[in-house]
């Protein structure tokens, strides 16, 4: 089963994809930092940066529809939090500021994820001397998320084919049992992974 729906376009060929990972990550972080630090009155900057981001996404050959749909999926979270700011003096200005800034930051990250494979970001983390234990665990986690999702889907299918109707209470119990089951399976898998790692000369 394929689960690369998250960073589906991170492995295609384009001038943006060929740039070095360090450059892309640092550029994204600097851009986000500037966006957060600038006051709202600098409309020029926000327009300029939006044009730049759109330019980069055109060069990267990622379908605009896909990028936009990712942005729209994530926008409700931003809206939900920013509504809190409406209930105070001058709340409308703060609301708009947050909305513009957050959307620019979100789009930057979406663009970064879809132009850089996660394994390359992990390599870069090693280069900048992030503790190796942390990077190892991050790598293991990223590798096995998809395996565990497969596991969970298989369990869900098995459950659906055996029970005809379920009410909410049963779904809660079944889902929670599933989480327990996934934990047990992943722990057992960890043992096998360790043996396999040792057999290939790890450590």
């Amino acid at each position, binding site marked *: 089963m394929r689960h690369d729906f998250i960073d589906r376009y991170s492995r295609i060929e384009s001038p943006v994809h060929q740039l070095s990972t360090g450059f892309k990550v640092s550029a994204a972080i600097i851009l986000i930092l500037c966006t*957060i630090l600038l006051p709202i009155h600098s409309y020029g900057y926000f327009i300029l940066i939006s044009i730049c981001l759109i330019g980069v996404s055109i060069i990267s050959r990622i379908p605009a529809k896909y990028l936009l749909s990712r942005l729209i999926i994530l926008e409700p979270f931003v809206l939900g939090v920013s509504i809190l*700011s409406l209930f105070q003096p001058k709340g409308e200005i703060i609301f708009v500021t947050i909305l513009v800034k957050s959307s620019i*930051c979100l789009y930057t990250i979406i663009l970064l994820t879809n132009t850089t494979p996660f394994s390359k970001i992990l390599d870069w983390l090693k280069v900048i001397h992030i503790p190796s234990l942390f990077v190892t665990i*991050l790598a293991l*986690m990223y590798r096995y998320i998809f395996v*565990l999702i497969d596991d969970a889907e298989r369990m869900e299918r098995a459950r659906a084919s055996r029970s005809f109707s379920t009410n909410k209470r049963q779904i809660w119990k079944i889902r929670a049992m599933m989480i327990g089951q996934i934990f047990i399976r992943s722990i057992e898998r960890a043992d096998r992974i360790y043996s396999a790692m040792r057999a290939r000369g790890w450590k």
Partner: protein
Amino acid sequence: MHIPDGFLDTKTIVATSILSVSALGISLHRLKKQILPHQIPLVGLAAAFVFVAQMLNFPVIGGTSGHIIGSVLAAVLLGPNAAILIMTTVLVVQCFLFADGGVLSLGANILNMGIIGTLVGYSIYRSLARLIPTDRGRLVAIAFASWCSTVLASIFCAGELVWSGIASWQIAFPAMANIHMLIGIGEALITTIVFTAILKTKPEFLHQSFTVNLSLTSREIIIYGAIVIMGLLIFVSPFISELPDGLETVAHQIGFDRNAVGQPLFPSPLADYQLPGMSIPAVATIFVGFIGAVIVFGGSFLLARFLIPNKK
């Protein structure tokens, strides 16, 4: 509860990042010393497990659904040091792959859910489980600890938003705390059922030797405790002191405070924004919180009784 980019200002970003990085540094340092080689894939898989557990949705009222955070679950199953690392990796991957939670607010998100939620939840679990040293007692402890950790994490989240000046304490605190008191019940329920499922099928996975450094050393308790207290002092305490005391509230209601003469010694910058009676929701929330805690504590006993019935 994931804070996106653009919500926090510079001072909040710096403060939360310093606190998170120091806590993460300690947990990594201690883990490196205590972890056995075969436990490294275990921690990686546990992180993937928490990630997948967060993806499973539970239907709530109407068409809405929610998921668990899992910080107490991770801490109880694998020990607090490992749990901090696990929650951090989960949040990092969510941030970079799903754009869920901002890059610069990563420090704040790690602090709320990965560090405060884990450490406070774990210490509540430990002390309660020691009081009632049975399997049922562990379930009570887990249920109550999960609820507390969710509510506390949401209060920290509110504190950070207020500190950044995007919402007022009187709005953000009741909104976040009240909602998460309900969400916390779900978290407690799911965590407890998950734990029971493991307890019934593979109890050896809950054994002391299996976890990575379960009991904290006194030095760790001091350092972690200092981080939690620093967080409380920075993000939560300034606002608690903003609340009017009982007499002031009564004075507001009766109206005799208008008769009070003389200029205030230090003119408050927020004086103009304070509407009469605005602070009452926050006071009410604290009150509801206490009652909620008592009810959840009682409910945990019933839940534990239901999940592990008396054998006769």
